[in-house]
């Protein structure tokens, strides 16, 4: 479904992606792991067209993402950002129903609100949250609202950028379970970025490790924990000693 071939991206002298090749099959949950600053978020942004790769091709269902109709292309996606990226000036329900209130997917306001409240309930938030503003919510609640927004239009493809970062272990577990539930129920194709191995266990069908600007390892979820690759072993087990350089 999603194919990346030889994707390169530099920011000035900093070569972030150095030829990424990755295939994400339809209906699969691909989790991308890797250290901080290895370009995981940049990779997702390249697929979405938020960042333009310097070289390489990215296709979704065989169509080059740079040549597709942007509106139709983006309508297939949902994205949960690391900090939720909710719009401060809008109440929660309008954040969730943002796409349903404007553009090609526009619905009557009442219908959009009903869908938003339904999606909020889907992520464990009651209708009383709908009229609050993002600043009035806790971090965990903001993540849930971001999740509700990502699934508001039942997209085929959902990206999750560090879904559990900054959350306590219990809330992280709740978010992981929600993501897995949504992925299974909706049959969506997903890409998740994380360095939380609990999330990997909960969410992944397949795991890819990004290191040195390239995909270092890719395989099934269970295999990642038994991998003989020293980079994967060091990362998965959180070891200070190993081939991945650490600053101390």
């Amino acid at each position, binding site marked *: 479904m999603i194919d990346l071939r030889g994707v390169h991206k530099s920011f000035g002298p900093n070569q972030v992606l150095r030829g990424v090749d990755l295939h994400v099959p339809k209906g699969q949950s691909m989790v991308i792991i890797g250290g901080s600053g290895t370009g995981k978020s940049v990779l997702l942004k390249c697929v979405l067209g*938020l960042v333009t790769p310097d070289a390489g091709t990215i296709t979704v269902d065989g169509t080059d993402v740079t040549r597709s109709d942007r509106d139709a292309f*983006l309508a297939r996606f949902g994205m949960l*950002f690391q900090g939720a*990226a*909710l*719009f401060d000036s809008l109440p929660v329900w309008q954040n969730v129903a943002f796409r349903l209130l*404007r*553009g090609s997917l526009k619905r009557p306001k009442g219908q959009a609100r009903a869908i938003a409240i339904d999606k909020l309930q889907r992520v464990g938030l009651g209708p009383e949250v709908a009229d609050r503003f993002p600043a009035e919510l806790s971090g965990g609640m903001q993540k849930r609202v971001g999740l509700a927004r990502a699934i508001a239009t039942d997209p085929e493809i959902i990206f999750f950028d560090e879904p559990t970062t900054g959350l306590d272990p219990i809330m992280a577990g709740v978010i992981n379970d929600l993501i897995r539930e949504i992925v299974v129920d909706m049959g969506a194709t997903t890409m998740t970025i994380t360095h939380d191995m609990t999330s990997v266990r909960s969410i992944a069908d397949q795991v890819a490790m990004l290191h040195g600007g390239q995909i270092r390892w890719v395989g099934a979820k269970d295999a990642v924990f038994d991998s003989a690759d020293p980079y994967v072993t060091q990362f998965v087990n959180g070891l200070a000693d190993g081939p991945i350089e650490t600053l101390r």
Partner: protein
Amino acid sequence: MIGFLASVGATTLALLAGLGRLMIFAASSLAAIVRPPFYGREVALALLNVGYLTLPVVGLTAVFTGAALALQIYAGGARFNAEAVVPQIVAIGMVRELGPVLVGLMIAARVTSSVAAEVATMKVTEQIDALVTLSTDPLRYLVAPRVLAGLVSGPVLVAVADALGIFGGFLVGTQALDFNPTTYLRNTVDFLTLPDVTSSLVKGVAFGGIATLMGCYFGLNAGRGAQGVGAATKSSVVAAAVLILAANFALTAVFFTA
């Protein structure tokens, strides 16, 4: 020597590239105002923020400036027995120059800074990226409504500033300098010409547009973190103020040097 020339060349190229980016941004923003989709709610909110909420600061600034101008002209005019020109000079000074420039600088201080900070915060918290993934063009959703509000509110604010500035001069003139109210008003109205008022309003359009464009441009190009937001806000206000003063000179030259 070669190193010096290279650095001059590099600086010039960077300056021209920046200017080019700014010009392209301005053209795209103005085009976005007239191309659908239109976001009525955003335009209304921007008009409220840029226009209505700026009225008090503009009004107070204009009244005090007009009043001070009357005192200065009276004191200066007394040196060569020209005290009687206070109404005419206050009127021409406020309408041609001080009204538009004060409004421009007040919009730069109040609106440009808030727009830049707001948009820059949206940038660093990935809200701009979120807008794009939600199939919404930030140029149309964020920039066009604010720039439109600047273009519409600018001349209205200038008209208010002109009137209140003249009123400030009128108050001082009639209450402290013994001018006859009827004569003061007649002299003011008789002296002003249509080009005076037209140039004032045109400057209002230009300054409103510059102030909001700068806020949006620097906000969308903000660097990372709180430092990026601070730098964007500072740069936007400086750029807006300098461009407003430069545009004021250019427009004055166009209107009054024939």
